[in-house]
């Protein structure tokens, strides 16, 4: 039987009662739980839901960890606000706790930053079963160590998240999406750099290296969009085809990216952080006359302005990542599990990582991070 606590205190009770456990959300990133051995009892956040506190005037919202991202977004939208990092898999049912624990951000992070730039406070249950607070509920706070940041990407291995406080922003009035076609990945990487360095202030940028399309989104005042679009167009060399999508097509595209519906259903899914411009290193031959030498790395998408690749677990890609020393996180394996969290180059083992795991989870109540 899965445990289903309905309050932070109940979560702490559950955890104290279970010598080995792991908090789980809606299962939209199944590999993150599937890789934990069975002895770790699953504690579901299904009933740990709700908006605890929302102060539009403060730009802050506090929510229980099991609250669906989609629900938070609709509450914020009613006040003209949003989470600017487009948390992925919202429509698939992702919870906010799972999003933080997995450390995931979507396309909008290009402009104002990924999830780490918006999480300002946490309440979580540590390995001793204590309900602990880190950070705060005001947008600016420098008191104590930055536990909220440390728990981003901690995969439930350092503690169970109970409550999260985010900074939120006013939602732009309007947005427009454009596509630049016939763009070889190598050139796309260069264009990403150039546009990213300009003051055009793009809201999102993503690149489909197989389809050779670079997608972009501008957001802001309705009255200014037309002129801003013109400036982007003038930045792009004439050899590329520049099209502005209809609002519906634009929304559909970003949604497919965010929900990973551009991949076949149930296909594996990996997140690979790269430096901006790293794409040029990973796709050095694609689109050149050496294209045929390029091993098939499977479907993939460059997102967040070129800071991340979403890909599958294709073995040719993995070899390539090992050579280039990039590591990915497997969110979804074949079926449910991939037998490992990590993909590509091995993660360095450090004494401090072990010591910190021990500091938060001295009795190994939560699964290991390896």
């Amino acid at each position: 039987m899965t445990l289903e606590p309905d309050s932070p205190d109940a979560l702490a009770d559950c955890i104290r009662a279970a010598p080995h456990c792991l908090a789980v959300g809606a299962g939209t990133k199944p590999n993150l739980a599937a890789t934990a051995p069975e002895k770790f009892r699953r504690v579901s956040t299904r009933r740990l839901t709700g908006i605890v506190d929302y102060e539009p005037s403060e730009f802050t919202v506090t929510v229980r960890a099991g609250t669906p991202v989609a629900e938070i977004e609709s509450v914020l939208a009613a006040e003209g606000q949003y989470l600017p990092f487009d948390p992925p898999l919202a429509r698939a049912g992702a919870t906010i706790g799972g999003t933080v624990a997995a450390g995931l951000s979507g396309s909008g992070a290009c402009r104002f930053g990924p999830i780490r730039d918006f999480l300002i406070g946490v309440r979580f249950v540590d390995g001793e079963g204590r309900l602990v607070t880190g950070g705060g509920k005001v947008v600016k706070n420098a008191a104590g160590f930055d536990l909220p940041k440390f728990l981003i990407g901690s995969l439930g291995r350092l503690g169970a998240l109970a409550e999260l406080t985010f900074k939120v922003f006013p939602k732009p009035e309007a947005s427009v999406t454009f596509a630049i076609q016939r763009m070889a990945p190598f050139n796309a990487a260069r264009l990403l750099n150039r546009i990213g360095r300009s003051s055009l202030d793009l809201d999102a940028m993503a690149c489909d290296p197989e389809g050779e399309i670079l997608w972009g989104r501008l957001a802001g005042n309705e009255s200014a969009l037309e002129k801003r679009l013109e400036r982007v167009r003038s930045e792009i060399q004439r050899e590329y085809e520049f099209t502005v999508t209809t609002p519906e097509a634009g929304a559909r595209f970003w949604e497919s990216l965010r929900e990973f519906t551009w991949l076949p259903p149930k296909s594996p899914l990996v997140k690979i952080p790269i430096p901006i411009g790293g794409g040029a290193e990973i796709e050095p031959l694609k689109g050149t006359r050496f294209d045929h030498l390029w091993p098939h790395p499977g479907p993939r998408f460059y997102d967040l302005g070129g800071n991340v690749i979403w890909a599958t677990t294709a073995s040719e890609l993995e070899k390539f990542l090992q050579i280039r020393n990039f590591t990915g996180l497997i969110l979804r394996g074949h079926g449910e599990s991939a037998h490992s969290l990590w993909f590509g180059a091995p993660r360095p083992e450090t004494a401090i990582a072990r010591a910190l795991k021990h500091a938060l989870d001295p009795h190994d109540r939560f699964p290991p991070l390896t």
Partner: protein
Amino acid sequence: MASFLKQLEALFPADRLLVDPVHLAAYESDGLTAYRATPRAVAIPETAEEVVDAVRLCAEHGVPFVARGSGTSLSGGSLPVEEGIVIALNRLNRILKLDFDSHVAIVEPGVLNLQVTQAALPHGLHFAPDPSSQQICTIGGNVAFNSGGAHCLRHGMTSNHVLGLRAVLATGEVVQFDGASRERIGPDFTGLFVGCEGLFGIALEITLRLTPRAECFHTVLAGYESLEAAGDAVASVVASGLLPGAMEIMDRLAIQAAEASVKCGYPENAEAVMIVELEGPREEVAADREKLAALVEASRPAEVRVARDDAERAAIWKGRKSAFSAVGRLSPDFIVQDGVVPRKRLGEALRRIGAMSREAGLRVANVFHAGDGNLHPLILYDGREPGALDRAEALAGRILRLCIEMGGSITGEHGIGVEKRDYLPEQFGPDDIDVMRRIRLAFDPDEIANRGKMFPGAEAPALSQHGLHPLEKAGVISRE
């Protein structure tokens, strides 16, 4: 200790290892001039390897060390520990890599904040965190304190702009946390390190994110007949859906001081002024400025000024940026706090600070980052008057408690240091602090890195006088 010092001498040439009390005097205090302590020695490394060697030697002998950048901490963060050494990082001041393609700079910790922006500006990029000490404070200090500035609401603090770092931990372990990507997987070690107040070890190489500088600014100054009216104006801007780059308020005492000091030409007789600055692509700013004009108009200001060019923009900011040192000149001594309150309670907080100030018989000037509720009350007193310092500290304590009571924080950017460590347990519960302690011990089991800081319970160091930082007295920097 004797054998430790001998071995230290083997690591550093005599001109880079200060032991003479005359030389040590320069390192006794930081920007919190109220406290003073003389270290055993000051080591001045020139390379990361030398820092690592020094830290490893300290670890081996259990000797405490304090990393020091420019010593501008306002909370006593870089105050030396008497039984330990100071590791001064100013000579690790190389920009190791400027990668304009990846929008990344890799710098040594002694590089000054403003130098990064100066190096990046020709490429249209800048390092966004801009503490008002930016001409003089180091990136290492910014990292340790997660320093802020006037643009935090929109752009975030230092931690939002540090992508990765290499550090020597207090155990002697050298680590590389994360890299040049804005994204990461696994726990955010870099995020944890930033804001550690020097308690984990010493950052050796810091990977910074460079961001495009806004193309266009629109700066408005509005004078009001009451502080509350200015506070309401800020609230209405926030509620409107605009996201300004900066929103600041100054009260009458601060305005008068700034006027006397730099002749900034702010509206005379105003009880408060608000500065709002929009930024972004020019078309975007053009649309926003109309919205802003309507909001400001509706807030019934006594006077409004709109900067027509860069010179006028600079003039508006000059009054704001000089405010603290200007107020400091009104009084022989002062204390500055940087607590945070929820924005909607700014008016109430200011009223109550006003009442506390009258009760204590001490003047308080207010200059603050209104956009994120970050107060900066400046408590003026005369240290020569018996009991004045105690009254000033008591008032400062009441203000910190007020921030906690209102659901805010005791520090928005200056850190806990030695100054506010007794208040940490009022903002956090015992379990919260225990977890922080365990994290500290994971990095530093012998508590040799910046011993006695942040956590309550340590012995108070010697008090000296309050007043302006020596560099402020010289007019080199001013504080926010």
